[in-house]
């Protein structure tokens, strides 16, 4: 009897421990603790520092309200977002077919793969001046720069995806009598979707890198311009506003994309 009781009590304690653990992990999962830690360190360090050198979180918030009050913050965000979105979408539209072509056609692959592997190591920022020369200082050059920044990541991911399709899948389609075109549409593309998705996600990061560079060098609007411009007015807090806004934009875009991917492409097992 007593033994049974003891076991029961032990089980109860174990269960309570588990419950407590799950609550903690729930809080940890929201990421609130991490943010709290960063903000505390930032506050403390900035307290002992010159606001010109390191503005406090509060000063940054004030700065944000300052730029937001005349709407310019939102206009800048809109500009940067629109450029990234346009360039990224266009890049996706060009890169996916290119990747599929590279993956499915050995001739094209041996022709283009060496070039792709050479050019992809040239960072987009190195092309800013050239792109301005070729496409003007307007929106075109910036959008094309993002197309460039997204192109290689997505192309290489797509093409890796095609190459990693198991031979058995292609042969299954072949022996069933599927034409080459049917195999592309019903086997190769569905099997490659997770790779394309990952490529598109990674490309978002490179898009942001490229756009901020471009806006710093040649723009009258956008978050990059705002960060670069802040130095003229000794507004260090605006730089911080810019950084936070960039992080937020990227984070939200990524979340939205992942959410949509999971909703619409769940059967293709896209990885978040």
């Amino acid at each position, binding site marked *: 009897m007593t033994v049974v009781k003891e076991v029961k009590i032990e089980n109860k304690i174990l269960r309570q421990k588990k419950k407590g653990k799950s609550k903690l992990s729930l809080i940890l999962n929201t990421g609130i603790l991490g943010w709290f830690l960063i903000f505390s360190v930032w506050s403390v360090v900035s307290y002992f520092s010159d606001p010109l050198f390191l503005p406090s979180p509060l000063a940054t918030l004030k700065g944000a309200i300052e730029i937001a009050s005349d709407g310019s913050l939102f206009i800048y965000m809109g500009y940067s977002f629109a450029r990234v979105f346009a360039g990224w979408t266009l890049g996706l539209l060009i890169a996916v077919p290119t990747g599929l072509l590279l993956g499915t056609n050995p001739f094209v692959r041996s022709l283009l793969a060496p070039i792709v592997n050479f050019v992809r190591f040239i960072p987009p920022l190195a092309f800013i001046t050239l792109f301005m020369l070729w496409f003007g200082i307007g929106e075109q050059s910036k959008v094309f720069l993002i197309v460039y920044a997204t192109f290689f990541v997505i192309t290489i991911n797509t093409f890796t995806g095609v190459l990693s399709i*198991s031979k058995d899948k292609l*042969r*299954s389609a*072949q*022996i069933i*009598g599927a034409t080459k075109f049917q195999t592309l549409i019903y086997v190769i593309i*569905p*099997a490659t979707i997770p790779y394309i998705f990952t490529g598109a996600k990674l490309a978002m990061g490179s898009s942001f890198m490229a756009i901020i560079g471009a806006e710093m060098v040649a723009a009258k609007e956008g978050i990059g311009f705002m960060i670069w411009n802040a130095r003229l007015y000794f507004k260090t807090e605006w730089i911080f506003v810019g950084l936070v806004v960039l992080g937020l934009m990227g984070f939200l875009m990524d979340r939205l994309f992942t959410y949509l991917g999971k909703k619409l492409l769940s*059967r293709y*097992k896209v990885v978040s």
Partner: protein
Amino acid sequence: MTAVEDAIVLKNGSKTFQEDAENPVYVLENINLTIKKGEFYILLGPSGCGKSTLLNIFAGFLDLSDGDLQIITSNKTNRNSCGFVFQSADSALFPWLTVEENISFGLKMKKMPLEERREIAEYYIKLTGLTGHGKKFPDNLSGGMKQRVQLARVLANEPEILLMDEPFGALDAMTRRSMQKELIRIWRETNKTVIFVTHDIQEAILLGQRIGIMSIGPSSKITSSYEINLPYPRDITSIEFNKYYRQVQAHFEDINLQIEER
């Protein structure tokens, strides 16, 4: 007795993998094989003996380097009248399609209307014992179930010849046993020609009407052939079964001796 038609006739079939043009490496050399319509034929041999290569040639995945291959089917001499069951269902099935969609994939490629496709898929779901799993994705099924899906997917295209490449090799012993039983049942119901590759002697004698034993490569050949005159379903514990087992086993031990002497 009416003459049974041939399903596959291979004459002097050779397959080389050219490392350089002057010294080709023979994988298969001078193979002669005739398989009758409706026959359950087993290709038995150790790993790397080229039995899968031979099966891939029958399927049209690989070409013969030399020799003549005839696949004879009732409507036309067309390689699409073969169906192929791969060893790994994971790599052969389409994980983004449900069980039902996987099974009717070939019919979709033939542009058959959805309603008809569903009907046929439903029939093969029942035949292969997958009732109730049609809407699931392959990843949510066990290994044996996945292999059933693969079999159903192949059968749905109504091939006359079924090529099976160690289809039960990756399954646990119990699942394998029940799949073997099911296969025999389906074979007898559908009257297909089956060519089944395995390295398991017991499986070979349990399933096959005729067993072709392949020697170890390079330059593999079908060295001998056994007719298994036992009624289905076969009992692996029976005396007759074990007679055959001992015979084939002894054959392999001879081969092993030869290799050691080499």
